[in-house]
């Protein structure tokens, strides 16, 4: 967007806020779905609409207003549109609402086109390196034609490469016209030494950010999945020189991203991803047994526990009771769980349902958790000192909460 002054401001951080009414026990399989209500008592209608699309039949215009408001704040309007369409209830939506849903969906679909194009550019650029390109997250869902891609609003292309090829990948991309987005020397060092990805790159003639990962979580963090396992299990896409993670790994990556990425403004989108992936893959016979075992092998049972807990409670994701039992020992202490329930749900949907300052406070607490999980204490102190002294608000992209 060009030069008009108000268009030049940063695009809105897409995020959210809400509240879980009660804490029920997930691990014993007795989780009941209760309508989450905001601290101010207003129900989180958006979650209800996502969970049971038929409920939208009875929405008055004022309720639609609230739903659209919450969806706009979380960047999920197009997704809502896809869900309304899939539920075959487009006719039941008031015309003015339908218009808003459709135009947003059209814009997101158009953006998918740009992402596909960018993927072909990256693929072509990296062809001489001679390795299969593994797509992650949005681009993977899109190219693999998964339901999770429908109406999903995203702007980056994420790829996974083996760590020992990172240097040659970087050099090749730089030769082919990609550049690092402006970053200080410290940021460069931060990414290279302590992060699981290269600093974000962008092609000089285009506008899509490229993130080159060598793992799904930072090497300095508490959880360190072995990326070789992910690379070995990756599945080629039919007819394309591209791969995506195996279904279980995709779900685990989604859960890790939800709980550990620090992109707190995208929590709802990540939660919807997780829900959609599970619903899509769970019909494969041994999906659940494989998933739990894989979470153990990769050492990411805790994020899976949280991910399933939140997905089941907030979006009604079908999780078998035995999976809950199998993951019971990955659960945090009960008090932590209660706190996480409140923080997570209160930061999920932005809008009028949760008090502004309370949400900011909850986001700050989650931000602290995120940093704590991301680096060992001494490094964290050093990092925060540096940031405090140089006046930068944040370094790891995604720790930005506003």
């Amino acid at each position: 967007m060009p030069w008009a002054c108000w268009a030049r401001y940063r695009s809105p951080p897409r995020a959210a806020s809400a509240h879980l009414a009660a804490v029920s026990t997930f691990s014993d399989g007795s989780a009941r779905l209760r309508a989450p209500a905001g601290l101010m008592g207003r129900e989180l209608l958006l979650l209800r609409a996502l969970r049971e699309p038929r409920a939208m039949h009875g929405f008055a215009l004022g309720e639609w207003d609230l739903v659209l408001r919450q969806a706009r704040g979380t960047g999920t309007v197009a997704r809502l549109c896809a869900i309304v369409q899939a539920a075959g209830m487009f006719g039941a939506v008031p015309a003015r609402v339908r218009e808003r849903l459709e135009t947003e969906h059209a814009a997101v679909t158009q953006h998918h086109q740009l992402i596909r194009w960018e993927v072909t550019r990256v693929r072509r650029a990296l062809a001489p390196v001679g390795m299969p390109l593994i797509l992650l997250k949005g681009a993977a869902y899109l190219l693999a034609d998964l339901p999770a891609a429908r109406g999903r609003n995203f702007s980056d292309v994420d790829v996974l490469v083996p760590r020992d090829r990172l240097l040659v990948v970087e050099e090749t991309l730089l030769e082919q016209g990609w550049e690092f987005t402006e970053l200080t020397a410290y940021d460069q060092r931060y990414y290279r030494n302590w992060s699981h990805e290269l600093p974000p790159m962008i092609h000089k003639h285009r506008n899509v950010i490229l993130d080159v990962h060598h793992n799904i979580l930072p090497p300095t963090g508490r959880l360190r999945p072995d990326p070789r396992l992910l690379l070995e299990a990756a599945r080629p896409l039919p007819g394309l020189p591209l791969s995506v993670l195996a279904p279980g790994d995709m779900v685990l990556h989604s859960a890790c991203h939800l709980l550990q990425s620090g992109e707190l403004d995208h929590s709802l989108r990540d939660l919807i991803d997780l829900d959609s992936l599970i619903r899509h893959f769970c019909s494969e016979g041994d999906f659940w047994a494989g998933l739990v075992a894989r979470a153990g092998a990769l050492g990411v049972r805790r994020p899976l526990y949280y991910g399933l807990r939140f997905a089941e409670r907030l979006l009604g994701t079908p999780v078998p009771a035995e999976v809950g039992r199998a993951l019971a020992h990955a659960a945090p202490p009960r008090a932590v769980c209660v706190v996480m329930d409140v923080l997570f749900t209160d930061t999920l949907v932005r809008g009028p349902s949760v008090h502004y300052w309370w949400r900011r406070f909850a986001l700050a607490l989650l931000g602290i958790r995120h940093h704590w999980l991301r680096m060992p204490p001494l490094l964290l102190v050093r990092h925060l000192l540096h940031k405090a002294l140089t006046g930068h608000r944040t370094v790891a992209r995604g720790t930005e909460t506003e």
Partner: protein
Amino acid sequence: MKLGELAPRDVADRMKGQGLDLDTGPFVVRIETPITDLVDEIRSLYHDFPADAGGGLVDFHVAVRRPAGPFGVRRWLRRQAIAYLDDIRPFEPLPIHMAVPMLESSINWCAANQTNQYVMIHAAVLERRGSALVLPGITGAGKSTLCASLAYRGWRLLSDEFALIQPADGQIAAWPRPISLKNVSIDLIRGWAPDACIGKSVPNTNKGTIAYVRPPSESVRRAVDRAIPAWVVFPTFEKGAAGRLTPLPKARAFFRLADCSFNYQALGIQGFQTLSRMISACNTFEFRYSSLDDALGLLGALPLPSPRS
């Protein structure tokens, strides 16, 4: 009921509470603010717009408040205003006397960033006999001055900032919100249209002094009427220049128009088709001017494009 017909107390109370829904034409804006000076300005600038009791579908939720900070300390330190679009804050806090530009910019920001039902061009749009004149232009090109001067001399105001083109039929929807004048233009328009209602001047903004002109009642009344684009004219104010219209090749006009668009890229093929249809059906010009009289004469005499076979 028009905003100007509501009791001032009611308006202030509603804006202080749940917010007041203003039907601005293509978009319903809910405005919430406890700042009484701002309420007065809104009542004046949006005098002729329908105001609803609320409860319906709202496009933009805009709240302009005094930033409190933790425990409200900030209120004691500075008199400021800040806009919340739910909990997005698109702008830094500004001194409280800039609340009106803050509100107007926020509404613009919402349209530019949160809607896609129209192909949106940063342009002033006016209409005569059903034909629309589109004046795209960067800030400082004199677009708003031209817009205000034409709007008070026989042209109908469609919009000062946004050309909203409907992809379905290529017609332009009206969004006749207040016109923002800057610096010397303010007195110029005061002299040009003594009957125009111009709000308080706001000094020291990043664009200098700004004042907003209430849109003519007739334009607001006809806000639902679309217009068919006929002329695309890129204005440049040049001191001392004689008014001169130069035909602009359509391909160049296309790219300059696309460059002024907020969502041309986001709409993809739809954006391309809409703009190319519009450009091929319009006469396209560059326009240098220094005097409003010249401009009024030249733009008023623009030939209608020949209908394409």
